């Protein structure tokens, strides 16, 4: 039988500012988080303030640590796909793709053009979804509520498209090693095209509210400037790195999944401040729309999974239920996992938040020996210790919003 007991524990909230006692001068210690609206999840910051100025800022991580890397060592490659949803949970489809591509690279497996096109399409849709949230929340951090409503309306439409494709709005788990879970539904591509046709209208509404808004400019221009050298030294990737003027986009540098066929531009910032990071994201959404239109225009026909990878990709259900060989194939893949050769591989994909990398050490068989997840948010946040000092306390919300991180992937 369950019993309930009333307990009282001293002032838990004050435990956060234990650092206060260590400071012996007129400085003030301020604890933000781990549960606080500006930290977009469970990031905790311990700051030392001199009046309104930040003197020191120490991020504390680990509040969302679930041990994904340990879990990965104890399950087959396909079983880990749902866990990748929960890394950058604002763009689960892009994580699914990055993970599947890594394992396929180790297995030296090439997927057919239709599968590649589906993967490019969902990656770009995930990028739009993530950037829409990034922009909206960034506006909100700077005090503008309305843009968030506009961007969230559009995200809702995207989620409906995701649901139609994958069966889930949020945790999609859509890719498989050697393919994707299913082909695109009838008429779905048309609906995606309608969506991207309408999207620029919503983007321009957000832009009208923010881009030349005096208050927004005052709060973001020249705030949180990251020089090119610092951005490289701290291992920033993605829009945050490009906003500092570094031309690094893995879709262009090391094209994967057929990105080389598509024509798109890589927006680069000049100053590396919060405003530049916002502009880069806006432009990336427009470029993603360009890519999506090209993918849909030349959508390849044919197989949507690697048909010859008998030990890696489970055959379609109707074949499993009607043919002995496929039944055995499915049984082996489900129980023993996709058979991946031994070796080590590192692959990273250009995800919305930056370069999401997987380093896999395999000793053969269906289970990785070691998997390291290189999370872009983890690296992007490491610059905070250097970036925050010298800013006003009120700027920290804007800086955090502009870095656009997700704790799910930071803590893993």
């Amino acid at each position, binding site marked *: 039988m369950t019993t309930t007991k009333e307990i009282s*524990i001293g002032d*838990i909230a004050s435990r956060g500012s234990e650092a206060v006692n260590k400071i012996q001068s007129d400085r003030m210690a301020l604890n933000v988080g781990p549960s606080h609206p500006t930290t977009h999840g469970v990031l905790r910051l311990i700051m030392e303030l001199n009046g309104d100025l930040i003197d020191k800022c120490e991020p504390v991580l680990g509040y969302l640590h679930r041990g994904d890397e*340990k879990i990965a060592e104890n399950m087959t490659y396909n079983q880990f796909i749902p866990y990748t949803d929960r890394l950058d949970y604002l763009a689960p489809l892009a994580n699914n793709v990055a993970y599947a591509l890594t394992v396929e690279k180790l297995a030296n497996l090439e997927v057919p053009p239709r599968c590649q096109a589906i993967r490019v399409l969902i990656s770009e849709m995930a990028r739009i979804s993530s950037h829409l949230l990034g922009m909206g929340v960034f506006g909100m951090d700077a005090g503008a509520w309305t843009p968030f409503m506009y961007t969230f309306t559009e995200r809702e439409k995207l989620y409906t498209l995701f649901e139609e494709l994958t069966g889930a709005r949020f945790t999609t788990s859509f890719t498989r090693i050697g393919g994707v879970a299913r082909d695109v539904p009838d008429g779905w591509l048309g609906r995606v095209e309608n969506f991207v046709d309408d999207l620029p209208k919503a983007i321009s509404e957000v832009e009208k509210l923010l881009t030349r808004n005096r208050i927004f400019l005052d709060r973001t221009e020249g705030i949180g400037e990251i020089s090119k050298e610092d951005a490289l*030294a701290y291992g920033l990737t993605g829009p945050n790195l490009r906003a500092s003027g570094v031309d690094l986009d893995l879709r262009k540098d*090391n094209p994967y999944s057929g990105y080389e066929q598509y024509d798109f531009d890589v927006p680069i910032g000049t100053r590396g401040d919060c405003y530049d990071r916002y502009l880069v994201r806006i432009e990336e959404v427009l470029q993603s729309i360009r890519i999506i239109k090209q993918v849909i225009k030349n959508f390849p026909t044919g197989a949507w999974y690697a048909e010859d990878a008998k030990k890696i990709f489970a055959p379609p259900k109707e074949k499993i239920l009607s043919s002995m060989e496929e039944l055995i194939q499915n049984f082996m893949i489900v129980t*023993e996992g996709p058979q991946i050769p031994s*070796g080590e591989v590192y692959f990273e994909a250009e995800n919305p938040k930056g370069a999401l990398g997987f380093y896999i050490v395999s000793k053969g068989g269906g289970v990785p020996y070691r998997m390291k997840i*290189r999370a872009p948010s*983890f690296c992007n946040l490491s610059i905070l210790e250097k970036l925050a000092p010298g800013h006003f306390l009120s700027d920290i919300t804007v800086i955090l919003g502009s870095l656009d991180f997700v704790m799910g992937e930071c803590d893993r």
Partner: protein
Amino acid sequence: MIDDEFSSELMRKYSFLSKRVSVDWLTVECSPKNLVDLLQSLRDQEGFDILIDLTAVDHGEDCESRFSTVIHLYSLVHRGYIRVHSVCSDNDNPIMPSCAEIYPAANWHEREAYDMFGIKFTDHPNLKRILMWDDYPYFPLRKEFPLAGIDTPLPAADVAEVTDASVEPAPMMGGPFVSGASGPMSDSEPRAKDESWTEEMEKGS
């Protein structure tokens, strides 16, 4: 582009390196004592500007040299990666030189490797746990650490005193859908992990 010419040139320049077979990027092995110098010249002379990733691998308790670190560097000049392996010589007290001076990005990665594997990075500016709490007694990514976890005191002693709670291992040891890297296939079935019932032992009421 990182091609054969570049890699053989690199191997000639840094004679202490040995090359390793790799399916993707140029992979070299470097002894810990040369690591800092190597990274310094890779950054300043060979154009590897970004430390993309630093991690460690536990090769198993009975392995001769158990721990090694793996560094991935990216070059904007060559638009490619280089992977640097370094093996820790001491299994019981693994030590590796820190490269946080050269690449500030390594700071958090090294803290994570220390947190998860217990590898000590010498001359690291702030070597403490990053994902687990400061007093956590184990190194979770070592191979002998069980997936379910180990019973550990709560990080907050005053809460533990009142609630009598601790950090408990996950229920159903090993988790419901767990496949080991070795062992017979039946081990990977869910029921094999449910220790309340096996072929030898009847299920309790």
